[in-house]
């Protein structure tokens, strides 16, 4: 399996969709689509995410890799497929910000890892409270680029609490990467430094049913 992950990672970094598809096609002889997502795709994306955190890969590579994986996994594991991970209802958003790249990357990596989530696009605090309550969302992922947007998570948390919504909030993006204490001060349950960390935190939140203790 190690060799398949190595080859798959290399194909992604070379933007070689054909080779990446060939590796998964070969693996499909012995693995279910979900097992492929868990044992080949997610580990390769995790390595690329870690490399970005260490300065050994670029965000554009993380983005392109996520996009390729999402296309490949969608082909073998369509969005409504019962083979996808059983999970609490989950959504992703960008808080009052026009910078969508971080959200797009995390969305692609989570879906490539077998999760399904709603994409709320860009939203204000009040819009989010309304949609979270309406959809019964239990895990909310928030991507930010601008510092003032990161601060708005605090207001969102307060309004969700007042509405009695038990929602796990997972945050990420530049302000949180620059100040590793910021996520706590705005009342988030966790912070992911990159998309790979987001997957592992979503796994923990899924097991906890939403909020982390």
């Amino acid at each position, binding site marked *: 399996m190690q060799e398949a992950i190595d080859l798959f990672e290399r194909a992604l970094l070379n*933007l070689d969709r054909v080779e990446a598809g060939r590796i998964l096609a070969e693996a499909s002889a012995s693995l279910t689509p979900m097992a492929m997502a868990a044992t080949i795709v997610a580990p390769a994306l995790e390595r690329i995410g870690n490399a*970005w955190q260490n*300065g050994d*890969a*670029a*965000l*554009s*590579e993380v*983005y*392109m890799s996520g996009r390729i994986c999402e296309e490949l996994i969608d082909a073998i594991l369509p969005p409504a497929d019962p083979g996808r991970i059983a999970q609490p209802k989950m959504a992703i958003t960008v808080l*009052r*910000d*026009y*910078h*969508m*790249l971080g959200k*797009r990357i995390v969305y692609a990596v989570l879906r490539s890892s077998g999760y399904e989530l709603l994409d709320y696009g860009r939203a204000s605090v009040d819009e989010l409270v309304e949609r979270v309550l309406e959809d019964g969302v239990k895990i909310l992922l928030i991507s930010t680029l*601008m*510092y*003032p*947007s990161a*601060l708005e998570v605090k207001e969102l948390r307060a309004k969700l609490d007042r509405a009695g919504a038990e929602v796990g909030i997972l945050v990420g993006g*530049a*302000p949180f*990467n*620059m*100040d590793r*204490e*910021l996520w706590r*001060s705005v009342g988030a349950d966790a912070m992911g430094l990159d998309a790979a960390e987001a997957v592992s935190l979503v796994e923990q939140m899924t097991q906890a049913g939403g909020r982390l203790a």
Partner: protein
Amino acid sequence: MTSLERVQATLGHREPDRVPLFLMLTMHGAKELGLTIREYFAKAERVVEGQLRLRAKYGHDCLCPFFYAALEVEAWGGEVVFREDGPANSGEPIIKKPEQILELAPPGIEESTGLCKALRAIEMLKSRLGEEAPIIGVAIGPFSLPVMQMGFEPYLDLMYERADLFERLMWVNEVFSANWANAQLDAGATAICYFDPVSSTTITPRDRFTRTGLQVAQRTLQRIHGPVAVHLASGRCLPILEDLIELGPAVIGVGPLEDLATIKAACRGRAAVLGNLNGVEMCRWSPQQAETVVREALAKAASGGGFILSDGHGEIPFQVTEEVLMAIASAARRWGTYPREP
């Protein structure tokens, strides 16, 4: 020693009387004048007054009449979205389909009300201060401007998959960027800060950067008739430092996640270093923490000149308090004097 003399000495890799301090306070002038950020940037006179009051208060060594990055995209017909607690953002992208790039032409500087207002602010500051302190102009690099022109994802898709349209976009952006930088120099700016975060290896791998962003920067900087600081706005610069130094900038900006001592050692005698206080953490510093962090930065990079103390992003968040800014300024004056104690 005037601020300008202090900065010139350090750019010449000599030790001035003390380490120059650049507080890149773009929005704090609004607080000084009791205005909202939107009201503040509505008139050049307000920005001038704000910059002069901030320098009188903190005694730092530059004037930074930068309005907001979205000002440039406004010149291309883009929308500016103001908020009360932070920098104005660019709104909906102006390039909605890649094919629109074929029709794109660089806007004239004089045709943009926003750019003309920023030029007036530079002219007024120059007439008020003369050669006392450097006035820093700002141009967004042509390689980074498309993030606002078309959005980050579509831009990366273009860069990776539509080489023809990418080249065409760079061509029009290079013309605009150089014209805008030169207009600021003509208005009285002492130097241009060339912001190019997409060139950082945080965003673009080095091999692609050398085929794209580096060549764009080479062509653009050759057209700019004045000193330039290259700033990657918090992105990593170490893996491409030699490439950046080859561009011949007077200054290289260093982000808060990089080791200032390593960058300073690598740049020594070839380019001055600007940085790298963490602006986001600064929002929750106490005055004592501010002093400690300033002392650490000085210990890493002050020796031998070639260093300007600043934040690592190129813009200090609106949330940073007067108390902390005062602590930074006073620590820089107290601990930044030359000759340095061994």
